[in-house]
């Protein structure tokens, strides 16, 4: 309705000049307003994306334009043990970290949704791991899990859980290192999930729980049949973002292990950096990065449908 009114006023001035018309014409006006954002996104996002796709089919190296080699890069990658290992670890990393983050995040959100003293304060403290730059907290984990001087080892020895003569080789043992980076990723991701789910929980009216309880619902039934259905849309979105960012994580791994020991903790992003930038094989690096796209598309489709359910920004208010 309001829209129609604006359209009428736009049409009102009798015989406008071309310039006048350009100034009021919605489509042109829209274009002018969109221009800065579009310029950035086209120059530094769409164009590189296309170029990355092209480069993945070439043998480009640093300082040399590549020749088109078709699917050669991908053929090599399939036979490359390090790549396959990175692919598998990326999937395991994403899966384990996302599931645990979600479980603990939801649990923490439910805890924070109780009637607590200093609620606002606790909530802001919980968010701190999320605020602090990932690299800087990764450096702290690097030190906490130092092979020789780990404070965790010290604690375990003190509690009598570990023999003093046999320290755990946290960062030197492939499996241990994998566990440590997954742990660090979970640590960092929990606040985001907890706080967003908490915001969702707070929109659920307490009277629903009262009604359910009067009907004899247990705590679990309260959660299963009241909280969970109402939270589903927000869970879908939060988890999509969580999965997306976990899958493409780079900085945590690079700061803590650089993919080592013996390439055990390489994610696809770090392997792509190592091959493409450090190794100079831009084409191969691009091919590794492009291999992430199918997985990302899956995540995006998931989020698209998650958002559709909630009439997101674009969909609503179309009169």
């Amino acid at each position, binding site marked *: 309705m309001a829209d129609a009114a604006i359209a009428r006023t736009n049409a009102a001035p009798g015989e406008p000049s071309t310039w006048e018309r350009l100034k009021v014409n919605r489509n042109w006006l829209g274009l002018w307003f969109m221009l800065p954002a579009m310029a950035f*996104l086209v120059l530094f996002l769409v164009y590189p994306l296309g170029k990355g796709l092209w480069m993945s089919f070439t043998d480009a190296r640093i300082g040399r334009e590549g020749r088109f080699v078709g699917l050669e890069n991908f053929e090599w990658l399939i036979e490359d043990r390090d790549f396959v290992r990175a692919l598998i670890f990326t999937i395991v990393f994403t899966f384990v970290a996302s599931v645990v983050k979600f479980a603990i995040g939801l649990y923490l959100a439910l805890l924070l949704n109780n009637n607590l003293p200093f609620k606002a304060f606790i909530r802001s403290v919980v968010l701190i791991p999320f605020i602090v730059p990932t*690299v800087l907290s990764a450096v702290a984990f690097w030190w906490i899990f130092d092979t020789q001087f780990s404070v965790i080892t010290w604690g375990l020895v003190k509690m009598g859980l570990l023999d003093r003569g046999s320290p755990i080789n946290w960062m030197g043992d492939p499996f241990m290192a994998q566990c440590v980076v997954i742990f660090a990723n979970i640590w960092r991701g929990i606040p985001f999930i907890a706080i967003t789910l908490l*915001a969702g929980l707070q929109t659920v009216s307490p009277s629903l729980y009262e009604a359910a309880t009067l009907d004899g619902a247990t705590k679990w039934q309260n959660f299963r049949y009241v909280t969970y259905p109402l939270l589903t849309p927000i869970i879908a979105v939060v988890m999509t973002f969580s999965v997306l960012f976990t899958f493409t994580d780079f900085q945590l791994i690079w700061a803590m292990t650089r993919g080592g020991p013996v390439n055990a903790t390489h994610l696809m992003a770090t392997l792509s950096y190592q091959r493409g930038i450090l190794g100079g094989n831009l084409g191969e690096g691009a091919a590794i990065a492009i291999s992430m796209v199918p997985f990302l598309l899956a995540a995006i489709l998931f989020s698209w449908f998650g958002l559709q359910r909630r009439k997101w920004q674009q969909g609503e208010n179309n009169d």
Partner: protein
Amino acid sequence: MTATTSAPKAMPAPSVAKDDHSEGMSYLESLPRKTVTVYIPLIIIMVVLLFPFYWMFITAIKPDQDLLDLHGGNPLWVAEPTFRHFYKLLFESNYPTWLWNTMLVAVCATFLSIVASVLAAYAITRIRYKGAQTVGGLIFLAYLVPPSILFIPLSTIIHVYGLFDTPFALILTYPTILIPFCTWLLMGYFKTIPYELEECALIDGASRWQIMVKIIIPLAVPGLISAFIFAFTLCWNEFIYALTFISSNPNKTVPTAIVSEFVDGDVFRWGSLMAGALVGSLPLVILYAFFVEHYVSAMTGAVKE
């Protein structure tokens, strides 16, 4: 007008709704029971979440000889705190330069992104030109393109544009991460502003530009603050572009410098490293302390909307 009823929730929800639970059914829970089911797990989680910061802080103020000595005395405590690591960091290293670089890049990139986002968000929500919906959807998709698949082609493009190893490489590439986010956030805010205001101004002969600058922007200040804080944090945090596009020591940003410049061969200078990590986190923590509500609403708003 569905927007005016649903969108404002993004903003006040965390602060308003928390009072709802002051009554509810909490009287059904006895204190001992609540201690076991709520307080103890909460304390355990908080301790785990905060321990790394404590350990960073303790390490940063420990004298060097105590750092590598886990067995004499308690490593969780410092008998003789020293500020030598901080002193070395601030006066005997390039750290101030790195801080300055990070600040410069973050402020410029955030500013550029917010200007572009305000214009874009206004156009999408209010001018509603042909294809506005599609563009809105595309911007959402751009938010889902991660830097880790773009950095290789971008690095060649940065070379071609002649931006390699300059702050401009970062100032111009960060907006691609920030614009989608800020636009998305601001679209939600702009929708909460009644159309009637705009109609009146149009009838009085105001141009779109005047309407945006004089009516929409002042009313969307909370949204702008949220966008600013979030964008600034993302810039400060960014690592992969900074690592790829910047090569010389004095041009580095804090995150990249920290991981590469504090290791002498095999010797890790843990004290300085931890001091550097703490100081590097400080600006964000201060910013955050002042604007927690905005921060939380930006984060939840971005997901909920």
